[in-house]
């Protein structure tokens, strides 16, 4: 007999997972909760085994919720004792959640920046002060990568920085550990830098989206104040770790990045729009205009001026928006059907201290996202954290924002394997390093990150949030 392809088996397992709850009667779980559990199973299995792309699973989630859990669906036309069904617009509405619009603005900006080589030229400019000593070149590369990936996709930033470091690597002795340090510094800095702003990377969006469905809005600046210091300290620590593990032999790196800023009127407009938008985002506390509202400015200006044309609009990474929207949507049902609370209350939380829960959530998020997509890991964990906080079982002082941050940040701290993040995959593909190098350094950063997240959650975040 011919073995079934992995894809078919994964789909089969997912469908089985979907069907099982329909035949069970779980005490303490509402009828709608059973349906939500079905959807949770198929989503989790599809997201983990990936028989279909992860964004396709998100779309499936929204479809299933509209059909089976909404007021307009087939199962719950009327409110029951335990479940007042959400209108279907709640589920499809996640696509226009403020965080999605904020991301759209970020995509459009990043797209224009790449089109006019703003990212490359900024890199050239910002790297200059770091001189030509390997130690400081690596620091410079990490700072610039971190900074750019806070506003652009981590993956695009890594790809761009590869064009900067590959010529250096080519000129370095084949047995100089500097090559490995260089190749690892970029993806690591990109992964870490993504944490710094709400638009840095999709897991942040999942966290902010989940909080917004709970009526908690996190301002752009607030996020930066919460996450920024952690990003800086983790970046610096990663720098030390890389220098320590891969001590450079050569003491001079020839840096000759060529290029000039484009000076045509479109390019200048892009620089201005980029600068103004970022400035308005980071000054939200002063003017009070929400970041999602400001995000509409670049979208409008760049399309009005034709810099974002029809093809440009078509080529935006819409699948990321679907992915995040599906995640937010799943969270809504896990909440409203009581599923998340049921999962939470099946564990005796009062036996655990707050510090234990912080470490547990952070560790689980880091481990999960080493193997799964960071966004998926955050998506699967956030509803549990939300219930833990809102149901009150975790006791007083267990802050919803705090535990959400722990999950969101931790999901980006996974970088042990080539499959952990797309930036890791890019670095690996250059052939300059082996998986064991990435695993060693990624492990050290993961452990340090876990420690930092715990300390921040215990001391720094409560200070800011209260």
């Amino acid at each position, binding site marked *: 007999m011919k073995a079934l392809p992995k894809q078919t088996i994964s789909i089969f397992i997912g469908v089985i997972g979907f069907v099982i709850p329909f035949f069970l009667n779980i005490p303490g779980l509402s009828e709608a909760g059973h349906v939500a559990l079905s959807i949770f199973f198929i989503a989790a299995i599809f997201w983990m085994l990936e028989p279909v792309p992860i964004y396709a699973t998100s779309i499936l989630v929204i479809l299933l919720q509209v059909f089976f859990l909404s007021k307009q669906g087939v199962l719950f036309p009327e409110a029951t004792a335990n479940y007042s069904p959400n209108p279907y617009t709640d589920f499809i509405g996640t696509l226009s959640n403020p965080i999605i619009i904020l991301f759209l603005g970020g995509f459009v900006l990043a797209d224009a920046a790449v089109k006019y080589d703003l990212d490359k030229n900024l890199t050239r400019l910002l790297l200059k002060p770091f001189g030509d000593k390997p130690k400081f070149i690596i620091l410079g590369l990490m700072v610039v990568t971190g900074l750019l990936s806070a506003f652009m996709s981590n993956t695009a930033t890594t*790809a761009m920085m*590869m*064009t900067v470091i590959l010529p250096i690597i080519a000129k370095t002795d084949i047995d100089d550990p500097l090559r490995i340090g260089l190749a690892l510094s970029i993806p690591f800095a990109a992964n870490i830098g993504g944490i710094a702003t709400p638009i840095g990377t999709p897991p942040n969006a999942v966290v902010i989206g989940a909080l917004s469905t709970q009526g908690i809005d996190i301002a752009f600046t607030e996020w930066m104040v919460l996450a920024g210091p952690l990003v800086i300290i983790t970046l610096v620590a990663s720098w030390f770790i890389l220098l320590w593990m891969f001590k450079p032999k050569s003491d001079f790196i020839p840096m000759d990045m060529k290029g000039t800023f484009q000076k045509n009127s479109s390019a200048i407009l892009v620089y201005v729009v980029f600068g103004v938008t970022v400035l308005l985002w980071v000054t939200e506390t002063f003017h009070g205009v929400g970041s999602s509202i400001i995000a509409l400015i670049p979208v409008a200006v760049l399309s009005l001026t034709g810099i974002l044309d029809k093809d440009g609009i078509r080529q935006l990474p819409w699948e990321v928006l679907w992915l995040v929207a599906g995640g937010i949507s799943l969270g809504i049902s896990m909440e409203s059907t009581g599923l998340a609370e049921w999962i939470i209350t099946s564990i005796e939380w009062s036996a655990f201290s707050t510090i234990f829960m912080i470490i547990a959530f952070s560790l689980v998020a880091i481990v999960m996202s080493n193997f799964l997509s960071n966004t998926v890991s955050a998506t699967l964990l956030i509803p549990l954290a939300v219930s833990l906080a809102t149901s009150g079982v975790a006791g007083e002082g267990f802050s919803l924002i705090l535990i959400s941050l722990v999950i969101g940040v931790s999901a980006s701290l996974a970088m042990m394997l080539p499959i952990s993040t797309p930036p890791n995959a890019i670095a690996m*593909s250059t052939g300059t390093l082996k998986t064991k190098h990435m695993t060693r350094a990624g492990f050290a950063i993961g452990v340090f990150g876990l420690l930092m997240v715990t300390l921040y959650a215990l001391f720094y975040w409560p200070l800011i949030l209260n």
Partner: protein
Amino acid sequence: MDGKIYILVVEDELEVMEALVKDLEKFEAFFPVETANNANEAQQVIEHIIDHRNKVGLVLCDHVLPGKNGVDLLIDMQSRPETSDSKKVLVTGQAGHEDTILAINKADLDHYIAKPWSQQELEEVVVRELTDFVIAHEKNLLPYMQILNADRLSDVIRKNKMTDH
């Protein structure tokens, strides 16, 4: 990867063939090298590659061959949809003016390497042509970063709006 990408070498002189294959060694792990001694055999090899849903990424072809000549083979490949995008390089010392013009106009010749070639020249041509080929035909460029022009591949990845998940 959607199927393998082959390098096809067509050359009738055994020693020259051996030298070419030896110079292509470093590509072998990423792009399997197939050989043929004449145009007919080349057609069969191409047939075989296409039947298995693989692609001919690059053909390095001598001009003077027993039977049909190299330029005619390239023109045939150009007229076939499956191989019209394959990168076509003549490796020869004896293609006359007219044949060369024919190869450029009718077979969309990508490069002409005059014998004797240097290994460095050959590698540069192979890297450049295959980089063009994978950029045009492959969705996932990462597997080729360490063998082809990583700089150009990274830039395409950057512009293709690869995203985080």
